[in-house]
């Protein structure tokens, strides 16, 4: 075979199975009784030609070459007559199955191609693409709207207070308490320091501020009897 001939073919075969099928068809041999020696020889010739043309031989082709050589060598092994009768596997069997399956899907691809051609004869309109429409739930009531507003408005007041609370530092609270004490003449019932305490945060802040003031001896704590009212007084005054 001329090298030019190879080139044409080398470009045609997508994979080793395609090449093998071509060789089988070309030699007009029975796929179930492949003359493995001859086919292997031709297969290797192609591989060599590929290398000659500096075509990267895909690893798949080399794997198949190895497989063919293995089968060929196994075919050459003499078989004991006893075992020959037993259902010993033909070394070519797996390859034949692969080739058959490959050929089957080649045929199937051709059938699908025909179906596609037939389908293309039917010209459809471009899809209109009706966008999904979102409809409002039934029975939206004005009362729901008013309720929602009332709820959000109430919580908004809280929300506002919360923001304010977060801005109250222990330092500020300390100032507040001292200011309050001075206004009240230096003496105040403990509970009154929490007068503005709408929330736990503010209570905690107030309490921390009190503890800090006590630690700094700016105020004193007095309680006349158990469970009686607790009084705060300005430290310096009492002093």
């Amino acid at each position, binding site marked *: 075979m001329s090298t030019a001939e190879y080139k044409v073919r080398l470009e045609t075969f997508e994979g080793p199975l395609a090449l093998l099928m071509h060789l089988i068809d070309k030699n007009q041999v029975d796929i179930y009784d492949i003359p493995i020696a001859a086919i292997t020889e031709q297969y290797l010739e192609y591989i060599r030609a590929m290398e000659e043309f500096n075509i990267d031989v895909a690893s798949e082709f080399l794997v198949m070459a190895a497989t063919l050589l293995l089968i060929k060598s196994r075919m050459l092994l003499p078989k004991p007559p006893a075992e020959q009768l037993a259902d010993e596997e033909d070394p070519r069997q797996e390859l034949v199955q692969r080739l058959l399956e490959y050929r089957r899907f080649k045929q199937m691809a051709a059938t699908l191609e025909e179906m596609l051609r037939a389908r293309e004869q039917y*010209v459809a*309109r*471009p899809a*209109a693409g*009706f*966008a*999904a*429409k*979102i*409809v*409002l*739930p039934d029975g*939206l*009531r*004005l009362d*729901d*709207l*008013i309720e*929602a*507003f*009332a*709820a*959000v*408005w*109430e*919580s*908004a007041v809280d*929300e506002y207070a*919360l923001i304010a609370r977060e801005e109250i530092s222990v330092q500020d609270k300390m100032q507040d308490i001292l200011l309050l004490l001075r206004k009240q003449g230096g003496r105040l019932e403990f509970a009154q320091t929490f007068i503005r305490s709408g929330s736990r945060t503010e209570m905690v802040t107030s309490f921390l501020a009190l503890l800090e003031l006590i630690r700094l001896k700016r105020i004193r704590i007095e309680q006349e009897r158990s469970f009686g009212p607790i009084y705060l007084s300005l430290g310096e005054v009492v002093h």
Partner: protein
Amino acid sequence: MFYRHLKGHIEALLFANGNPVAADKLAKILAIDVENVAALVAELKQDMAGADRGLAIIDVAGGYQLCSKPELAPVVGGLVEVQEARMSLAAMETLSIVAFKQPVTKQEIEHIRGVNVDGVVNTLVERSLIKEVGRKEAIGRPILYGTTDDFLKAFGLNSLADLPDLADLIADDTNLPEEQTE
């Protein structure tokens, strides 16, 4: 009609093209006179008049277009996938703020709700319950939102005047404890 089979050709051509097809273009493709095209289209129109047909041909700018019959628009509208929107609490609250405080900016809504409302506001705009109604004369000229006609429809209102007065609502709120004690 000796051109009988050409009616089918015209139907197929108008169908496949979608857009209107000029009469002379049809004539050229079918290798007949424009007058014949007009006659064939007239026949086609007649064929389509029956209740067992759903299509119609309309004359558009010197050409013809295949359409579904206008009276079947409600039926065709059935193709639209209808998804019932759930009004989340967040959506309802935001909508109520827009309804009672309009025109209102996102920032103002956020101040009342205490959370970011970008997503909710966009959803309400998409559902055409609220819309942009202008810009606030403030830094950044933020968008002002108001309710839409669809909003009125959804809540069965004739006009915004049917909304209860916000002042009353707030007054009600503050009076509530006293009323309850009575």
